[in-house]
């Protein structure tokens, strides 16, 4: 193994695993990794699997190559990290900084904090209430959806982070709770569009980014990744649909007998 390859291949493998974990498309991952490798005088080939990524780095000068494999942790969509990592790749390409500077910037990007959970809960609840309005819901239904979404989203976050519950079970439970709360329109005769409130109460759980990434991977001819992402998104959709179904059965909504 060529020792001179150790920095770029280790760094590039970590970089690829991180950016994929944050929900980057395969085409962006490939371009960014190859851009950084090219800036360091290497050529990189990348194999992306559903749960792993292999990076093969070849020294352009002597032709020696090194390969590293990294496991991709569970997806956690973070476009801020993707943006910062893409910018880092361009900085490497344009300015050729030293290895220590690249590593320092990489660590700072990876350790950056997310938007506060209370802000995310508030914005998500507002978003879902707006969704209700877009589907023709009245203001009473919007208020019901606002509360149901805030409760469901808070519960999902706690189930995943504090209780370490499986994401699919958390989506099922959050969907069920949100749907039950949004049945207030039916139970207490609040508003004129209780059906819209019930329909929109679980839409914040739809894994839209995963579906879009699957379509992007499909166009980029990364069929295995596309199918994997599509199945993952499909399972989450089934979980939230099952939660809605369970809530409707419990609350006897849509049943005549």
């Amino acid at each position, binding site marked *: 193994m060529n020792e001179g390859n150790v920095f770029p291949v280790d760094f590039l493998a970590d970089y690829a695993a991180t950016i994929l974990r944050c*929900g980057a*498309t395969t*085409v*962006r991952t490939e*371009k960014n990794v190859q851009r950084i490798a090219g800036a360091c005088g290497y050529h990189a080939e990348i194999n992306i699997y559903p749960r792993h990524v292999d990076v093969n780095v070849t020294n352009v000068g002597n032709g020696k190559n090194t390969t590293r494999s990294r496991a991709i942790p569970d997806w956690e*969509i*973070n*476009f*801020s*990290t*993707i*943006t910062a990592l*893409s*910018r880092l790749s*361009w900085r490497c390409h*344009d300015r050729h900084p030293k290895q220590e500077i690249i590593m320092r910037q990489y660590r700072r990007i990876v350790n950056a904090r*997310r*938007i506060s959970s209370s*802000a*995310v809960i508030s*914005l*998500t*609840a*507002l*978003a*879902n209430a*707006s*969704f209700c*309005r*877009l*589907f023709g819901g009245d203001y009473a239904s919007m208020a019901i959806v606002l509360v149901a979404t805030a409760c469901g989203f808070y519960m999902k976050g706690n189930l995943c982070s504090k209780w370490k519950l499986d994401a699919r079970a958390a989506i099922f439970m959050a969907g069920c709770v949100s749907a039950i709360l949004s049945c207030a329109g039916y139970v207490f005769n609040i508003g004129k569009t209780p*059906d*819209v409130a*019930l*329909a*929109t109460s679980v*839409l*914040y759980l*739809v894994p*839209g*980014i995963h*579906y*879009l990434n*699957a*379509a*992007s991977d499909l*166009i*980029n001819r990364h069929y295995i990744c596309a199918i994997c992402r599509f199945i993952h998104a499909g399972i989450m959709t089934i979980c939230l*649909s099952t939660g*809605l*179904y369970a809530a*409707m*059965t419990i609350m006897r909504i*849509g*049943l*005549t*007998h």
Partner: protein
Amino acid sequence: MPVYWALCSHDDNENRINTLKYTFYIMLPIIEDCFFAAIAAVGFGSISNIPTRAFYGCAFLAAAGHGTRTLLMGMSCISIIWASLAGSIVIGLLSIPVSSHLKTPAESMSYPALLPMIPGMYAYRTINALLQCTEPSPDNILIHNLCTMSYNGLVCTIIILLMLIGVTIPIFFFDKYSFSATR
């Protein structure tokens, strides 16, 4: 008051005011749609932790896309399927210059901006019809529920597929610009 208005007769002025009122009443639902779509996109963007400056782009793209869909469905009586495709293409195309301007990846804004166009009511009706299918009922009601479920499920799936294609194709078509936005 503009000079040409002052020179017009009283009837002309009244006609103009009526035309403005008519245009306002037509545009009001579209403006309302754009406003709520923008709020929805910002909320979904926060779940995906988009960069702070991308929130503006996200709101603008969602308003443009959803406004296009509402306009096409209301004015031209185009079906929701083709109107959603047009809306998603508008989001995909506009995301390229907006991402270059805000120095963020196109997908960080266009993906959350697309989510307010999810056909949620079709998905709900599918689940509702499925629930009613599981109940013991006469054959004609069962067939009606099956048809409702198939129709809504099919429309929902086609809309989502076309939206995915509509927003992704422009990013690949203008890849030189979309992948160098963060430079």
